[in-house]
């Protein structure tokens, strides 16, 4: 029995639906693949970074031990990075991004823990959030800016919109120690509004990502400021236990 026109068109529709579903499946698989591999990469780069830090700690520990033997006081700044972070100051004229990055970025509010790199071009951002080279280095005056993907490549900044004022962001560097920032505000701007990266007399850290989710129409900006967390123990005063 010859097929009717209706049957033919239904078959065509089915084929189109099948093709669309296939393409959708391919895309989803691709995104899943990207996110899974990015997550694996995040974990592996984090563990590599921590190994590097521990090796660095061991080296600096050995160096401190030999300095102690030589009668050099190594106590200042040791374990009190946050205390001296703002007031002690760093000579930024002698420092480069290599002294800070890769750095470990931790945001307890959203359970985020990853490595951020130097460079924010598309290729660099595939391996994780990156520091925009034109912006200041961590701890310096101005707006040190880290850019990251919101929904792809492991979605590192997927939940940064959940941050609220006062939330803490920890940036740990291997050579220059720990920088702690506290969130002071958020902003949503157009991608071309690069003015947001400039003009601050404070020591700030900006996290930027696409907004809203699954769209590159706007940029979500998390603004945070460097903060000292002061130790308060008697042991810090040099006695106690």
């Amino acid at each position, binding site marked *: 029995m010859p097929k009717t026109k209706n049957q033919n068109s239904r078959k065509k529709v089915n084929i189109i639906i099948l093709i669309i579903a296939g393409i959708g499946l391919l895309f989803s698989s691709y995104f899943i693949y990207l996110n899974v591999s990015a997550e694996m990469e995040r974990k592996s780069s984090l563990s590599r970074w921590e190994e590097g830090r521990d090796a660095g700690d061991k080296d600096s520990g050995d160096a401190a031990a030999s300095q102690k033997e030589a009668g050099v006081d190594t106590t200042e700044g040791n374990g009190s990075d946050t*205390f001296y972070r*703002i*007031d002690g100051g760093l000579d930024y004229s002698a420092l480069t991004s290599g002294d800070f990055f890769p750095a470990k970025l*931790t945001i*307890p*509010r959203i359970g985020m823990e990853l490595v951020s790199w130097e460079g924010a071009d598309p290729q660099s951002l595939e391996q994780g959030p990156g520091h925009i080279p034109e912006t200041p280095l961590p701890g310096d*005056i101005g707006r040190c800016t880290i850019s990251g993907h919101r929904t792809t490549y492991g979605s590192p900044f997927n939940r940064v919109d959940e941050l*609220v004022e*006062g*939330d*803490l962001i*920890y940036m740990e560097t291997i050579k220059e120690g720990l920088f702690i920032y*506290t969130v*002071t505000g958020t902003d949503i701007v157009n991608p071309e509004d690069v003015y947001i990266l400039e003009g601050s*007399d*404070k*020591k*700030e850290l900006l996290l930027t990502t696409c907004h809203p989710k699954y769209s590159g129409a706007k940029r979500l900006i998390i603004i945070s*400021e*460097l*903060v*000292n*967390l*002061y*130790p*308060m*123990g*008697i*042991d*810090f*005063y*040099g*006695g*106690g*236990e």
Partner: protein
Amino acid sequence: MKGKKITAITALLVAAVILVCIDVILVEHGKVVAEREAYENERIKRELLEEIKSEEARDVTRYYLELMPVRDEYIKGAVELSRELENEFVNIGQVKELTSERLDVATAYRDKLLLAENIPAPLENFYNRELDFINSDIETIELVLSYYDSGNYSTFDGLKIKESYIDTGSLFMKAEEELKRVIDYYGL
């Protein structure tokens, strides 16, 4: 006549010798008596001192036993709170809370110190130093709290806080040294 003369001279000589001997005996006796008196006085003095010292030691021990648990409680509380600060926090509000708790611990210790009465003389120096320290400790924490409340974290002039930390550390060491001196002296 000549025999009489010799007898008189002999008698005079004997008398002179006797007088010299008496004098020597008297002087020596005086010395012995003086020595005895001095020894006795020394013994009485020593006993008195021992008595005073043991009385002092009792007072010092009593105060020391009263003070030490309070002081240990303060130090333990301060160290524990400071250790907690080494953890990662979600929000700076938690850090402010911990700092306020630390202020409460220091204020409670100062209040207890101020309530103290009849501080034994050997511990007065320590007591004053300890008060200087705890006042400086409280001042430091208040400065830190004012920093957190300023909302002006990276441009805040932290020099005063830093100096306050150094001063407090130095006062703490002075109080510790004085306490150690008293402990060693009275074998506490």
